[in-house]
């Protein structure tokens, strides 16, 4: 994107009749090295994110014999997900839904406060691109060296440097793809099988897939992902308002921009921007923040660091580019005192939603039991008439024993006069059916309940199943329907 000269800016819009080209090639971005506060923040976050990602699967967590000892594990074949001391069954994916809702609302909240900090600091696309750029800089040198290298004709040195870069990228990409599959099975076993060539085709496929995507997205596509592929930049505008902080060029302070020359007094009306383009050179998406808030800006704050360094050198006040809001700057431009408004209806709403969802999740987790009971009424047949005129209904009771020990449960049925409950196999003793539930599995019991027809009186009734543990505590109570013939 071409920056306009002040004269061009001032010129009235002119008619341009010739349509431009339909397609344009990517203009390669050569971000320059930069040092400063935000760059340091980015390095710290990058280190944390990568450590968690590459190392997470190797964390161990003792769950007792027979259970996997991996802290973070999604076991597809057994249908279990493990997160430290939390174990989730397939029917509990709502926890994952909850986490996703939390993540989404959290993103809205942070965006309404500070703009695209997610994009600039935590998004995997940003983190891996940053890492790839670091490698690139180590091998090929900084911005000008890389530009020169690309322009230079192919020779031994260029081939060597380029090969080294891509080899290093591929290595990182392979490590990234490899780390992914570790979360889906016992990590040491997966790693050993992988290198012994004993893994399934699926494992090699996924490692290959994530290696390729990492290499392409972080090595080649980079800012193209943020500008053209990712949906998030497109709708995050809905979370921003004039009070949201974003990386902003303080035009009221910087304009009219102009270079400084030694021993020459700047013309009156000249702003603080010396038009050195340092902010443009460090930008990972290759844009000019001085054009204003724009879609391609990922909010990484590197231009702030770059400009502050310059401002320091030319002895002007820092933060010509800063995290600030449109409303704040409008006031400042008028020379009025301004303050930031973090508490706004929008942020209150997001914070409230965040608290609510988090509270629901915590309560749900705290109340999570190690036994779950489902009662299904047989529908085929709805009911059976017996020889003595009684009516019988069938029920399937499913007991989910989420504990790691076998447990014994007793089932009782109540709610109808003189009902008789019996298991489809075996006998009830004293109206109680005893079930031995295997550890970490679902126990299914078929039960029959029979009552005299006169008890029903032609209407459907309610029958209640109670499941008790060995200490006699009621662990579940389920009401269900008892169906009989119309009178």
């Amino acid at each position: 994107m071409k920056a306009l000269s002040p004269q061009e800016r001032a010129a009235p819009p002119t008619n341009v009749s010739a349509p431009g080209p339909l397609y344009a090639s990517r203009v390669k971005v050569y971000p320059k090295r930069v040092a400063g506060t935000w760059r340091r923040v980015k390095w710290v976050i990058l280190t944390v994110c990568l450590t968690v990602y590459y190392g997470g699967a190797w964390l161990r967590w003792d769950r007792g014999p027979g259970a996997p000892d991996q802290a973070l594990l999604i076991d597809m074949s057994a249908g279990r997900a493990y997160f430290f001391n939390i174990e989730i069954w397939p029917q509990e994916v709502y926890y994952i839904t909850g986490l996703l809702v939390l993540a989404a609302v959290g993103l809205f909240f942070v965006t309404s406060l500070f703009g695209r900090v997610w994009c600039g600091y935590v998004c995997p696309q940003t983190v891996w691109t940053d890492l790839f750029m670091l490698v690139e800089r180590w091998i090929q040198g900084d911005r000008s060296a890389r530009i020169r290298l690309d322009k230079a004709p192919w020779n031994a040195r260029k081939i060597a440097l380029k090969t080294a870069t891509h080899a290093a990228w591929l290595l990182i990409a392979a490590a990234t793809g490899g780390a992914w599959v570790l979360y889906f099975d016992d990590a040491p076993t997966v790693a050993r099988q992988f290198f012994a060539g004993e893994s399934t085709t699926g494992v090699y496929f996924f490692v290959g897939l994530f290696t390729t995507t990492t290499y392409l997205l972080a090595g080649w596509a980079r800012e193209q992902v943020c500008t053209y592929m990712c949906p998030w930049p497109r709708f995050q505008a809905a979370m921003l308002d004039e009070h949201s902080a974003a990386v902003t060029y303080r035009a009221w302070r910087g304009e009219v921009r102009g270079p400084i020359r030694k021993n020459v007094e700047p013309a009156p009306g000249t702003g603080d921007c010396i038009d050195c383009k340092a902010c443009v050179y460090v930008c990972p998406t290759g844009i000019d923040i001085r054009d204003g808030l724009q879609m391609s800006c990922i909010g990484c704050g590197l231009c702030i660091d770059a400009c502050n360094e310059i401002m320091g050198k030319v002895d002007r006040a820092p933060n010509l580019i800063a995290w600030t809001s449109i409303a704040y700057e409008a006031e400042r431009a008028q020379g009025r005192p301004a303050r930031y408004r973090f508490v706004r209806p929008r942020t209150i709403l997001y914070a409230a939603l965040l608290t609510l969802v988090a509270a629901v999740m915590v309560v749900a987790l705290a109340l999570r039991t190690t036994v779950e009971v489902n009662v299904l009424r047989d529908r085929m047949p709805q009911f059976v008439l017996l020889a003595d005129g009684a009516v019988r209904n069938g029920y399937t009771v499913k007991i989910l024993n989420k504990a790691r020990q076998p447990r014994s449960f007793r089932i009782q049925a109540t709610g109808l006069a003189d009902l008789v409950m019996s298991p489809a196999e075996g006998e009830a003793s004293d109206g109680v059916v005893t079930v031995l539930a295997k550890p970490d599995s679902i126990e299914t019991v078929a039960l029959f309940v029979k009552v005299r027809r006169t008890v029903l009186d032609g209407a459907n009734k309610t029958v209640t199943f109670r499941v008790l543990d060995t200490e006699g505590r009621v662990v579940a109570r389920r009401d269900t329907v008892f169906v009989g013939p119309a009178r």
Partner: protein
Amino acid sequence: MAADRERDIVTGKSTTGHEWDGIRELDTPLPSWWLYTFYASILFAVIWCVLYPAIPGIDGLLGHTNRRDLAETVKAATDAQAPMVDRIRALPIEEVRKDPKLLAFARTGGRAAFNNNCAACHQVGGAGARGFPNLADDDWLWGGTLADIEQTIRYGIRSEHDKARMSLMPRFGADGMLTPAQIDDVVEHVLALSRQPHDQAKAARGAAVFAEQCAACHQKDGSGNRELGAPALNDQIWLYGGTRGAIRDSVFNARGGVMPNWEGRLDEATIKMLTIYVHGLGGGK
């Protein structure tokens, strides 16, 4: 809408000349790689059409068919089940029931076979219908033990098989064996046996007729005889209806349902699985 293309002041780019509610659109060229991705997709589609059947009548180079896929999947499943099925075929039915794994397998296999072959008459879950016995209740025409059920499934009832269960109820009215008045009396007696409202005088007369004509099969107290497939008349279960009219119809025209023999049509293991499934519907003795 279509205004002149003009240059945007901030970016210096040309607009498309389109304007919506005061918002004008920049004429930003699409990235070329989008175009190349589009071409690559077209190429992919072409290769796909060459390799796989995409156009009716033209098989792809790979010779892929869904039908064969299915056949292979079914074969793989059948092969995987073979060890279980073989054990069920080899073991006596009582032994199959004692092994929890085999039992669960037999129940599931039995249900599939039942729904394919039996549910047309007996309904899903063995719920039964008029003339087709309910298999989940505790009343059996020919017996509800495993052996009884297996025999019934194997040879059928009044079927073409030599070993079919056979019995014939006389057509008391149609063949003039009883007078209409006698039939009325017997009907009242049968109503009395099942403790339904009845005419006492007629029922008393009918008892004598019943003892003479019916008790040989249905027993004096109406409890029936499973050797002969003679239903109990003193309970609350009626295959053809327990109303006065329905019972009269049964006495007049006689009843005699037919069930096909499944030996020869279903294999040994399937018959055993069916037996176990039916026995477990709720009425097994």
